């Protein structure tokens, strides 16, 4: 598979009046063509810095970033602008021109690449059609809702037929319902146009809903990277665990109790394992937390349970889960 971006040992240090801050430390990763790649992390982790190095809104301090094999740092200003036509970006704050109509906003990206006026209008209309906002073409952004503004921004970003779309917290200012609609739209565009999408977010739900692979950024370093399903069902790094189990939710009834995490994919999650366990063995476990999620179209679930005190029923329970095809890992 062709690599759209490849980052090798990327460092970024901000220097502000004598003070230095290392925002990215030794980040190496790649993004495949056609995939939806998520970058997740806490606020201040360095996600925006990372994504902004991809179109050189921010210069790296060391390391290299290549775009389709071409070293971004080697580009002269004119060449960089050329490359930026293939790398679109949308933002949390939409960044539309408030003094221009919806269609004029969409036309901007086409004006920049020098599309003639009539072709521009036509293409802009077509893009507004794609995002479902053609009837708002003559409105001003101030009259639109947040979700509609982001749709206009998406239309603007896609009008010049880019190869990649960078989304920096594009849904973070939107409520969950509108977020889901925007994500559905992005997914559809990804499939129909074979557009590579890079999504920056601090919300797990966003990554779970549409990303193929995910990178977890923690204090400027790459903590973990892999298929979304894998990373989220079996987080290895501390940062990943913190994301998957926010604010340590479980409290044991026994101070020295044993807590395990059960992970099961979509085929098993519907089976009432806990009820079966009680029915077949008489052993009761204490459910500390449970959730099922849909990841990349495949449902999976996980449960944090506290096992009984005595060793043999503990073993029985673990064997029961393992026989059912679940992965069982100790948490504490």
């Amino acid at each position, binding site marked *: 598979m062709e690599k759209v971006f490849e980052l090798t040992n990327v460092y970024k240090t901000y220097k502000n009046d004598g003070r230095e801050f290392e925002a990215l430390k030794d980040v190496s990763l790649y993004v495949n063509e056609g995939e939806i790649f998520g970058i997740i992390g806490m606020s201040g982790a360095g996600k925006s810095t990372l994504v902004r190095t991809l179109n050189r809104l921010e210069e790296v301090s060391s390391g290299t970033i290549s775009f389709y094999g071409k070293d971004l740092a080697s580009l002269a200003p004119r060449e960089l602008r050329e490359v930026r036509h293939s790398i679109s970006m949308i933002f949390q*704050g939409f*960044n*539309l*021109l408030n*003094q221009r109509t919806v269609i004029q906003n969409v036309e901007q*990206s086409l004006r920049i690449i020098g599309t003639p006026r009539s072709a521009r209008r036509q293409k802009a209309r077509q893009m507004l059609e794609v995002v479902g906002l053609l009837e708002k073409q003559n409105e*001003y952004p101030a009259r639109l809702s947040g979700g509609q503004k982001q749709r206009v921004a998406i239309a*603007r970003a896609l009008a010049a037929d880019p190869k990649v779309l960078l989304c920096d917290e594009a849904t973070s200012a939107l409520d969950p319902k509108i977020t889901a609609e925007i994500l559905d739209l992005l997914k559809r565009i990804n499939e129909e146009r074979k557009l590579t999408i890079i999504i920056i977010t601090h919300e797990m739900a966003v990554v779970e809903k549409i990303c193929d692979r995910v990178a977890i950024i923690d204090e400027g370093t790459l903590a973990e990277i892999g298929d979304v399903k894998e990373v989220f069902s079996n987080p290895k790094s501390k940062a990943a665990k913190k994301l998957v189990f926010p604010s340590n939710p479980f409290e044991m009834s026994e101070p020295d109790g044993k807590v395990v995490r059960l992970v099961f994919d979509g085929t098993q999650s519907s089976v009432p394992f806990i009820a079966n366990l009680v029915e077949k063995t008489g052993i009761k476990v204490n459910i500390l937390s449970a959730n099922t999620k849909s990841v990349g179209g495949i449902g999976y679930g996980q449960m944090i349970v506290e096992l009984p005190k005595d060793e043999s029923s503990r073993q029985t329970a673990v064997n029961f889960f393992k026989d059912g095809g679940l992965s069982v890992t100790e948490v504490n």
Partner: protein
Amino acid sequence: MSDYIKDAIITGVWETLIMTFFASLFSYAVGLPLGVVLYSTSKGRLLENRAVNAVIGTIVNITRSLPFLILLVLLIPFTRAIVGKSIGTTAAIVPLTIGAIPIVARMVEASLSEVQPGIIEASTSMGASPVYTILHFVIPEAMPSLLQGGAINVATVLGYSAMAGVIGGGGLGAIALQYGYYRYDKPVLWTTVTLLIIMVMLIQELGIQLSKKHRKT
């Protein structure tokens, strides 16, 4: 009030308008580009350039800090060199323009600085050049603020034009000085003052309405 004085006031209004109009026009012709350059070359902006910014900034600051009356006197030789005389409405346009340029430049710079950095980021990420971004993103976004600032500037020029009357610039200022001050003709003084106030208010109001019509947020 005699017909003679009435005629003089009407001429004064006309002269004031002429001075204000041309001085505003010329000061924007120079001050607007200067303001754009001041904005674009300042720290952290698209065309950051310390030397250019410092040179223009210093000239602007010096000109702006001179009291207008002093500038009027200082510029007499310059005015004579340009229009061939130093007295009259046409001559007054020269110092008015010079005095207004730095005010316009700083006002324009302030309006442009209000534009959200995100707008510039969006434009840059689309592959626009710095000049394109300034012309097609920053200036249109700042337009309501530029219009509002424009009204304030025109009103300031109008006020200055009254001062230009002191050195024989004509207009309502000259009438106020001649009849109101030297002859102590109170009705004429108050009439001219009232007319000046009304003109300033009209210009301000026009600017506010224009800005409102343009502001889409």
